[in-house]
């Protein structure tokens, strides 16, 4: 009995310490703010402690392509009537968005609307199976609860990743270990960095205006399938443009639809029955528009969700005016002026749509 008692005490003690370190926010005080986990946590913490000036709040989410800068949207707050915020994060995927939204809005009642930026409304294949994206475990580890583990693990369609997700979900230290070992290299600098990020990072992000660098001078000839770049552009850049604009489109397999159904569906479930509207918007397609745009997919994830009362699908072409080389920094991402323009248009259009309900 003594051995059993001691071993049970050990297990409970270990669980308690693990819980205290990784499930109470204690580790956040030393977490590297610019790591994947750190970025997610910083964005969520910033959003939770942000001072609200308006009862009508709109939160936007997406990945690095979501060049929404709330400061531009809030400059016209008097006109729109809504205060905008963003937790869009480079590298974050719809699976991560769900956990981020749940973290920023646990009771699903803080916002008038959640704006979710998607690449298109047709679930076009992108050449990467997001269901087996191992990095997602690092992005959302700070958000995972014990009850999430079965579904989260099953969402990785790969036995090794499923197992890694189960292990990591149960023992979060296994995922935090790289960060912890990095912390051990320079502990005092890290503590200072984390402290500074907790204090000021909201303003760093809010005041960020983007770069003025653009793709001005780049030309794509879709008929002759050639790309011309002005001096100063590298071969790697040109290759990336070729891939984006001239490579044949990937055949539709339904893989992305299945993935988006699951995670956009989870986001919808989180807000179902609440006063918050779920707004999907089609991101600007890029600096050049391919002639072979994807065909309408009536069974795509967002189109199916659009049938629900809480969901709004923004018109697809509201950002057409931004789709110019001068407003993009590369083949996918808007530059500073592009983001400013995009933010203003988004704020006006979304506010208008919400007011019209």
């Amino acid at each position, binding site marked *: 009995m003594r*051995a059993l008692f001691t*071993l049970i005490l050990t297990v409970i003690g*270990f669980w308690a310490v693990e819980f205290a370190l990784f499930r109470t926010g204690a580790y956040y005080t030393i977490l590297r703010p610019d790591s994947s986990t750190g970025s997610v946590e910083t964005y969520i913490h910033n959003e939770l402690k942000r001072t609200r000036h308006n009862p009508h709040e709109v939160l936007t989410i997406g990945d690095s392509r979501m060049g929404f800068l709330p400061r531009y949207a809030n400059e016209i707050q008097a006109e729109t009537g809504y205060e905008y915020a963003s937790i869009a994060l480079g590298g974050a995927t719809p699976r991560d968005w769900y956990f981020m939204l749940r973290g920023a809005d646990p009771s699903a009642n803080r916002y008038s609307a959640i704006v979710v930026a998607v690449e298109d409304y047709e679930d076009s294949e992108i050449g990467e199976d997001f269901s087996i994206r191992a990095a997602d475990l690092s992005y959302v580890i700070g958000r995972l609860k014990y009850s999430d583990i079965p579904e989260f693990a099953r969402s990785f369609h790969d036995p090794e990743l499923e197992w890694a997700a189960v292990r990591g979900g149960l023992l979060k*230290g296994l995922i935090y*270990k790289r960060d912890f070992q990095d912390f*051990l*290299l320079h502990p005092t600098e890290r503590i200072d960095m984390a402290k500074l990020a907790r204090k000021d990072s909201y303003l760093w992000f809010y005041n960020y205006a983007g770069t003025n660098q653009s793709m001005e001078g780049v030309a794509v000839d879709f008929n002759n399938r050639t790309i011309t770049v002005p001096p100063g552009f590298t071969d790697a850049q040109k290759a990336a443009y070729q891939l984006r604009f001239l490579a044949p489109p990937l055949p539709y397999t339904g893989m992305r639809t299945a993935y988006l159904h699951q995670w956009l569906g989870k986001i919808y479930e989180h807000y179902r029955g609440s006063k918050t509207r779920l707004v999907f918007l089609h991101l600007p397609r890029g600096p050049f528009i391919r002639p072979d745009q994807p065909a309408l997919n009536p069974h795509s994830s967002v189109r199916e969700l659009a049938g629900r009362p809480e969901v709004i699908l923004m018109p697809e072409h509201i950002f057409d005016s931004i789709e110019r080389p001068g407003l993009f920094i590369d083949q996918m991402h808007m530059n500073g002026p592009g983001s400013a323009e995009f933010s203003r248009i988004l704020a006006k259009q979304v506010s208008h749509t919400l007011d019209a309900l």
Partner: protein
Amino acid sequence: MLFNTTQFFVFLAIVLALFYAAPRALRRVILLVASYFFYLSWNYKFVVLLLGLTVVDFVAAIAIERAPASRKKLFLLISLIANLGMLGFFKYYNFFADNLAQLLRYPPHSWTYSIILPLGISFHTFQSISYVVDVYRGEQAAIRNPIDYALYISFFPQLVAGPIVRAREFFSDLYAWKPPSQEEVLRGVLLIVLGLTKKMAFADQFAQIADSYFQNPGAHPGGFAAWSGVFAFAMQIFFDFSGYTDMAIGMALLLGFHFPVNFRRPYLAFSITDFWHRWHMSLSRWLRDYLYIPLGGNRHGRWMTYRNLILTMLLGGLWHGASWNFVIWGGYHGGLLSLERMMGRREFEKRPPIWLYPLRAAITFGLVCIGWVFFRAATFADSRYIISQLFHSGRQMQALVPRWLVYMTGASLLIALIEEKFEWTERLSRGPAWAYAAFMILLLLTIELIGVTEKPLPFVYFQF
């Protein structure tokens, strides 16, 4: 199935559950089946070899016991030829064939074959030899139950990398089997977790540094880098092998068996003689009892003692692997042991006064580290280069070991020093529950946060 994988722990849990749920008469069979399953999970082909040698030695031992005195030696020879023949073929054939080809100026690899080394062959053949020799000497009764003998040879906690258990130790546990006491259960679990911590949090971390240095020593010139790389390997091999042994001893304890201690804080040794009383003790004991003493030991004068020491260590070195580097490593240690004998045996067996101890321990550690260069370097040329760098000041101050790992090693040194004095990990399983739990929690957190868990790395001694 590595000890540091989830599959192994599932396997262990099933074995423990079946073992304790089964009636006593069935328990040996369960352990034997589990051990063969464990061996099969590595390479099913070599199970025939393991089984074949088991049958030969089992029969040979009975024959030795029954045969008249004049014929006992014949059966002993048959067993020795079978064991050493297999070991020699699988482990040393290519080495000797290659050296012979070189000597006769044939192209390299003229007579070599692609031979896979059967897992654990160095250990189970040594264990078999010790058993048959003990029967021959009349120190051990021949085992009549083939299941018992097969279990002795294949018992999974020590099958692949020891410790090398003497037959009388194993069979006294088997025949007078008692369930482990409360303290033994706690100690067993503690040893398993401690071993896992040593392996995953220390050995595997140091392995990354040692590998990067030894794979291309020329890329890291200078004495500082060389000492860092060699230090990393010294730490890797200690934590790796002693970690494995701790786990083996812990698992055996949970099953009611008591394995001999294999490591006793070897890097705190104050002489090479003391080092070999602390490092891989079950091999040292085997070499002493079955090689050094039969060679004459120290019974035929000083020079024969030195010869015997060097010969024993040369063969001990060769036992580790078929390469001249291992032979040199063995010879180096044999030479140092002889030198210490020459300078006065007592001086190197007696603990020095406290003021002299740190210096003596540091010198011993340095000498051991130099030996590790031959053990780890891929070629003799690499060894020579690294040794030259160890004594080369150089301008570059490139340390390969991150600071936090040095701190962790410092902390473990402190723990080892306290352990040396108080043996408190021994006492932990008898002490208050909170103290045991606190230490275990520390170990588990270390594995979780420091351990290399992405891809389990094999144990160093599995290759031997």
